[in-house]
């Protein structure tokens, strides 16, 4: 058996972590670009190779047509569900006869689980390069408020990536595990998790018993379409509107300029988390530079609606846990968006308590996933996680109403039995419609599955079929049925409403292996070479301009040497050497970059490298 890991499959970034055997502490693995964060971006290059992470993110600016980000928003959803999403995100969907989403990248189409699987496979590669061993099992985290279909899609992604998914763990619960291990906390803990695309609030009770520590989730709530992306959308729409008014330039919200603007605005948002004001300078296609001063206050006013939307679920979760805000002992902040000062202030004001932020909010979920992976790997442990199902499970009854059979916030695994009989003589089947949600009518809840129970030919009311609905420890529904009179088991084929079948998953697994055939070193070499080429081009372009005259002879010689070194390195196949030479050239051209920058107006670009021009 290979290694086991914990993976945070995020909307914006994904991470992979494991337990260090020496320190017994969870650690995130650093990828080939020097960061533990793998941008959740996938691109298909014109040669048909899949590119994932940092290099794919760069392609958003040059090959938007072949690149996708925030695919998590599409997981477990149908074409009809995401029409609103399409207005805000550059998803290019292929027309599909069914409700199953198919995303187009260049000349190929993929389902959201397949795209997520590319990200998982990339992380798996990071870990395998790190361990020098295969990785075949994983705990993957999902938003606590993910429904059955979204969970199933996440699990499918794991399978397609060649991973045995031992458990799906809710993100806030994973964060609580990481914090518990870190601080030995006790009492009632609220975990506020605002990520790139999803929001969760979970209320837990941490209990010490003779056998060990129990993390019992009391209640959870959230919104699977609320996050930093929404803040970015607001900022982008605001600035786009201003540009339209002042300069009468209207660019497509999905094009490369829009991506460039989005990137600049995200950098501005990050700056405003550190200081009180920042200036946006954005070069427009007409040669002008759009300039606007932002204060933290003005941005706060703009984004407050998004932050306020998180408080509804917070209140509902507390009500379900029958707790008042002052009864919460500790508050933990998770997710990159909680770095926003307005978010911190809002949470702090509500609970009247300074939240914990000791652990890196980007890494904490992956660290917790690694803790849970370790627990499962050892079989028996001194830590136990008792999680809940976020949404009520129901079945459709007469007149389109829903009968709730497993209430939300039930500890999982949880089950319910229902007895069915026939209404007319010799009826051959009974139709059952399973739903998830809190609303009273079936049409307002999420349809999970429809299936037909086969009944033996008999007078009406005579057959008695007991159906058992079971939500497993992953929060995924299983259905079983038996004939009460004969005790005979019925097999129930549950066709998920928008899911993909087992057979399709197997085909996707094969396809994804074909895509992944290029070995790790080879892929690294290709990526380094691409990067090197763009740096070399930028360097020669910069050297040809008049500002280059400001360089000393020694500086010029250093650059020339580094150019030769890098050019030679990329002719070979050693990706580590290429990386080293890239760094050398970046260092040698630092002064040149500064000179270029000073002549340009753009002070926002401080700390940038030559190739960013």
């Amino acid at each position: 058996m290979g290694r086991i890991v914990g993976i945070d499959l995020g909307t914006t970034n994904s991470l992979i972590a494991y337990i260090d055997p020496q320190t017994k502490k969870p650690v995130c693995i650093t990828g080939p670009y020097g960061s533990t964060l793998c941008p959740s971006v996938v691109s298909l290059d014109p040669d048909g190779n899949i590119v994932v992470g940092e290099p794919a993110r760069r392609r958003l600016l040059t090959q938007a047509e072949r690149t996708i980000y925030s695919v998590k928003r599409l997981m477990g959803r149908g074409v009809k569900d995401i029409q609103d999403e399409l207005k805000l995100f550059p998803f290019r969907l292929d027309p599909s006869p069914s409700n199953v989403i198919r995303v187009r990248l260049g000349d190929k189409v993929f389902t959201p689980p397949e795209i997520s699987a590319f990200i998982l496979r990339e992380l798996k590669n990071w870990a395998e390069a790190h361990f020098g061993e295969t990785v075949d099992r994983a705990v993957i985290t999902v938003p606590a408020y993910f429904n059955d279909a979204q969970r199933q899609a996440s699990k499918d992604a794991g399978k397609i990536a060649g991973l045995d998914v031992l458990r799906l763990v809710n993100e806030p619960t994973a964060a609580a595990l990481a914090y518990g291990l870190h601080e030995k906390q006790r009492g009632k803990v609220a975990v506020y998790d605002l990520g790139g695309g999803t929001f969760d609030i979970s209320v837990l009770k941490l209990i010490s018993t003779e056998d060990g520590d129990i993390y019992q989730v009391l209640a959870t709530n959230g919104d699977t379409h609320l996050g930093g992306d929404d803040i970015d959308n607001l900022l982008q729409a605001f600035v786009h509107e201003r540009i339209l008014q002042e300069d009468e330039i209207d660019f497509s919200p999905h094009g490369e300029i829009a991506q460039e603007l989005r990137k600049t605005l995200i950098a501005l948002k990050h700056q405003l988390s550190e200081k009180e004001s920042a200036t946006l300078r954005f070069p427009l296609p007409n040669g002008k530079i759009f300039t606007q001063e932002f204060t933290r206050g003005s941005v706060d006013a703009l984004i407050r609606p998004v932050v306020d939307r998180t408080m509804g679920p917070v209140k509902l979760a507390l009500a379900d846990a029958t707790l008042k805000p002052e009864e919460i002992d500790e508050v933990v902040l998770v997710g990159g968006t909680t770095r926003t000062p307005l978010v911190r202030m809002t949470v702090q004001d509500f609970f009247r308590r300074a939240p914990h932020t000791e652990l890196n909010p980007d890494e904490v979920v992956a660290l917790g996933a690694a803790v849970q992976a370790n627990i499962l790997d050892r079989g028996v442990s001194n830590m136990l996680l008792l999680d809940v199902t976020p949404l009520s499970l129901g079945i459709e009854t007469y007149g389109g109403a829903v009968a709730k059979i497993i209430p939300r916030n039930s500890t999982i695994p949880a089950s319910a039995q229902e007895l069915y009989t026939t209404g007319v003589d010799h009826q051959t089947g009974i139709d059952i419609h399973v739903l998830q949600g809190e609303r009273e009518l079936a049409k307002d809840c999420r349809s999970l599955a429809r299936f037909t129970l086969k009944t033996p030919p008999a007078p009406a009311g005579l057959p008695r079929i007991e159906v058992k609905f079971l939500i497993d420890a992953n929060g995924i529904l299983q259905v079983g049925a038996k004939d009460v009179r004969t005790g005979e088991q019925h097999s129930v084929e549950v066709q998920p409403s928008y899911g993909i079948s087992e057979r399709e998953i197997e085909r996707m697994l094969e396809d994804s292996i074909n895509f992944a055939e290029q070995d790790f070193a080879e892929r690294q070499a290709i990526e380094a070479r691409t990067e090197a080429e763009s740096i070399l081009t930028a360097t020669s372009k910069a050297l040809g301009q008049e500002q280059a005259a400001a360089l000393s002879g020694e500086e010029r010689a250093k650059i020339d040497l580094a150019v030769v070194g890098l050019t030679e390195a990329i002719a070979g196949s050693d990706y580590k050497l290429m990386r080293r030479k890239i760094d050398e050239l970046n260092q040698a051209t630092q002064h040149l970059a500064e000179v270029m920058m000073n002549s340009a107006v753009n002070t926002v670009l401080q700390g940038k490298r030559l190739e960013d021009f």
Partner: protein
Amino acid sequence: MSFSATQPPDYFSVFGLPRKLRLEMPLLEQKFLQLSWKLHPDNFVNASESERELSLKRSSELNDAYRVLRDPVGRVEYLLEIEGERREGEKKQQAPPELLEEVFELNESLDELREAKSSGGDFRELKNKLQSAEKNFQEKLDELDTQLQAVARQWDAALDANGTSDARKALMVRMNELLNRRSYLRNLVANVAKEWTEA
């Protein structure tokens, strides 16, 4: 998924408890946590498939049992169900006789409120009326709960004293009646609250 043909244990016996209605919550919680350590699927990830299935079945039964028994009213309902004495009955939609007048009045006020809402009329006065009616019915609900508690105590005493099955049956019929009345009142209060938030 499959499950065995044998009937699952009743929720009381999951915890090794007699079918008594007054439970000590800290004790129930302690037993729940102890059993969770033993049964949770996390402990069986590397076990055989049949062991894994058994763990899933047992731990879901444990969680179902804890969910139901923790709730004092749900517990009574469940007891009557396994004793075969739960009758929701055709009287479900009917108001208890002693409340007929008050329910009639409430429904009238609700109708007026709906009318005022659709015609955009003033319903501040109605609101006050409904508010006091809601309070009144909420008090009656609390009273019912107290009565239910009292019968529950008698049930436990009858079990302790090894009371006759007739005596026990009489208590269950009484509890069933109280439950039906309770669900009627709860619907009523919930309806008022709903009209409320919409107004």
